[in-house]
């Protein structure tokens, strides 16, 4: 019997993986080949999807970009025995793109059937939770602080401090909320966790609950991710059946229940307080802080709210120890970050590496340059609210503090590559337009500023490059940065100003001597 893996992650599905799976089953039956089809997660090497893998004595051999029409020819070539074919990419674990990564959080991704609890526990799953169940909650929070883990959603706040605050708060009910409203273009690491290794997130949330004394958890997933929602719901049901959830977590006195809540297409709900409002069933309007959610969160109760990757990284920290995790990285950026190489890139996918890697390395060693084959010109790092980095900044190590020095943000590690046909003035205008579309409307700088910003950039693009217009744009951005309640209005100027500073020619402005030198 041959075991063949066809990914069920939505990236593979979007390229026809279901049809490939059906074709393999049909063809195997026709030829009388005994095949066991496994629907695994994605390895995150999206440029190879659908990546079909065949188990052999030497390891799992991959066949890339398989379409249903290729299946008969693959069988003819003996792919079910791992034989040669144009699409054969060799042993998947040996592909440099994968082999050279430092996969801690994503160690199991794509290897397992996302919904198999046996697969999960066979590859280290639940080890972290079992450790935590023998520990005192204070020690758990302390260990998390020791690990150096900072919020992976973008704000990079130390997770251990958040947990300690919630643990120390007195309340009849506390909550764990997972922010899975991954709305930033150029990001898919949360989605990959939810669809390809959901138990890791569930384990991380249970650990959080046990540590701070919370008995209810919610995963708020955006409505644009129906596959994630379906996979999580099935995984939670199975975890409950297996005794991880409910009145007694793995037979202990800890109780924890977990629910999935579905967003409804509002980008600003990725902001934690807007998310809490939405979770309560209301309009996703940002709350003023303080009070912080750790003290006054969901329904006014102390709440740990962390991003998917933050919570999904918790299990390995407790399985292998805080020091193990802390030993990766540089400066105050400890551990690894799943970089997401996206946009105009030849080899897009997820690359988990310790902090300190450079954009140039990610873009060329992993990304293989642009998809268009044209020179890369700008990379937007950290989502729609991150800056556009010109080539002169591609050698800065990806580290929260090093990036902050040049006014850039690492954010959640999403990289969107643009080639030399891009127009940064157009992208700046789009940034303001998007802010106008998605502003919750609570504060004036964001609500009004975004619309005015779009208008001013439009005027500049139409040829009014007078000092007056440029000054107006800069002052408007300044007001938004200093006067907005949250990152939506407060950071929309980042892409705008970086476009103006580094690519003035796209706005019809001359380059300064310093820019010419760079």
């Amino acid at each position: 019997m041959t075991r063949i893996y066809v990914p069920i992650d939505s990236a593979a599905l979007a390229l026809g993986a279901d049809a490939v799976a059906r074709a393999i089953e049909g063809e195997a039956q026709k030829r009388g080949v005994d095949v066991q089809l496994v629907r695994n997660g994605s390895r995150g090497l999206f440029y190879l999807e659908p990546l079909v893998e065949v188990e052999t004595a030497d390891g799992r051999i991959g066949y890339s970009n398989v379409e249903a029409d290729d299946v008969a020819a693959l069988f003819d070539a003996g792919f079910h025995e791992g034989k040669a074919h144009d699409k054969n990419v060799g042993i998947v674990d040996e592909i440099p793109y994968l082999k050279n990564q430092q996969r801690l959080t994503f160690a199991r991704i794509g290897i397992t059937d996302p919904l198999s609890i046996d697969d999960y526990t066979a590859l280290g799953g639940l080890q972290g939770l079992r450790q935590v169940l023998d520990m005192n909650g204070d020690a758990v929070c302390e260990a998390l602080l020791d690990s150096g883990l900072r919020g992976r959603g973008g704000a990079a706040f130390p997770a251990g401090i958040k947990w300690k605050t919630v643990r120390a708060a007195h309340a009849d009910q506390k909550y764990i909320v997972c922010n899975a409203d991954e709305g930033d273009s150029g990001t898919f690491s949360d989605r990959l966790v939810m669809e390809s290794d959901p138990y890791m997130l569930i384990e991380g949330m249970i650990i959080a609950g046990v540590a701070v004394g919370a008995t209810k958890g919610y995963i708020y997933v955006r409505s644009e991710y129906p596959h994630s929602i379906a996979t999580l719901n099935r995984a939670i049901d199975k975890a409950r059946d297996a005794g991880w959830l409910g009145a007694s977590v793995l037979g202990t006195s800890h109780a924890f229940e977990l629910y999935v809540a579905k967003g409804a297409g509002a980008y600003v709900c990725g902001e934690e307080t807007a998310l809490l409002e939405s979770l309560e069933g209301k309009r996703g309007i940002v709350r003023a802080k303080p009070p912080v959610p750790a003290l006054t969160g969901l329904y006014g109760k102390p709440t740990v709210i962390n991003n998917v990757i933050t919570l999904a990284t918790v299990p390995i920290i407790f399985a292998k120890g805080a020091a193990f995790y802390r030993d990766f990285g540089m400066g105050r950026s400890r551990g690894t970050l799943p970089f997401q190489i996206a946009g105009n890139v030849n080899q897009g996918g997820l690359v988990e590496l310790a902090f300190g890697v450079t954009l140039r390395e990610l873009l060329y060693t992993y990304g293989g340059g642009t998809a268009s084959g044209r020179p890369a010109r700008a990379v937007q790092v950290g989502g729609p609210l991150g800056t556009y980095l010109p080539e002169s900044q591609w050698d800065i190590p990806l580290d929260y503090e090093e990036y902050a020095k040049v006014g850039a943000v690492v954010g959640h590690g999403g990289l969107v590559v643009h080639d030399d046909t891009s127009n940064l003035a157009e992208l700046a205008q789009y940034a303001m337009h998007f802010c106008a579309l998605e502003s919750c409307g609570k504060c004036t700088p964001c609500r009004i500023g975004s619309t005015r910003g779009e208008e001013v950039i439009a005027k500049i693009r139409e040829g009014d490059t007078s000092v007056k217009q440029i000054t107006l744009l800069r002052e408007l951005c300044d007001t938004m940065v200093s006067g907005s309640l949250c990152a939506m209005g407060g950071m929309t100027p980042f892409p705008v100003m970086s476009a103006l500073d580094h690519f003035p020619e796209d706005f019809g402005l001359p380059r300064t001597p310093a820019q010419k030198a760079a």
Partner: protein
Amino acid sequence: MTHPQLSAAASAELVRRHAVQDATLMTILHAIQDEVGYVPDTAIAPLAQALSLSRAEVHGVITYYHHFRSAPPARVTVQLCRAEACRSMGTEALKDHIEGHTGCRFDSGHAEDTELESVFCLGQCALSPSMMINGELHARVTPAKFDRLYAAAQTKVAEVTA
């Protein structure tokens, strides 16, 4: 534009079934839209009553979120990602192609049987441009691939309704 709306009695029945204990307004709205394809105006009053909210509050939530629609969807709904990663791979040119091919405009409702909707990120940013047609996800979309998928969606709908 007027649309046939569910009767008040039918809406009241929908709300009664989905307004279970502890369900938030958002949860109930999702359940209703998942079942009938939209949130009928006639559901607002019973929702307000069931949750002890004002009708304005219910209306406010429905209209705040892009996902909720107040009218039945078109027979074919195309949701094209217009965000940065897809822009870097020519989604704006694809948008022009789609408008030309279907004769419809993006984000302008639907008089015909096709609705074109801009969305911002479907999580397939390494495989741009991406889109959904009637909820089915597609990546690395080219104009030719769009034409093929659009024709297939129309045929499928025609078969279902025939």
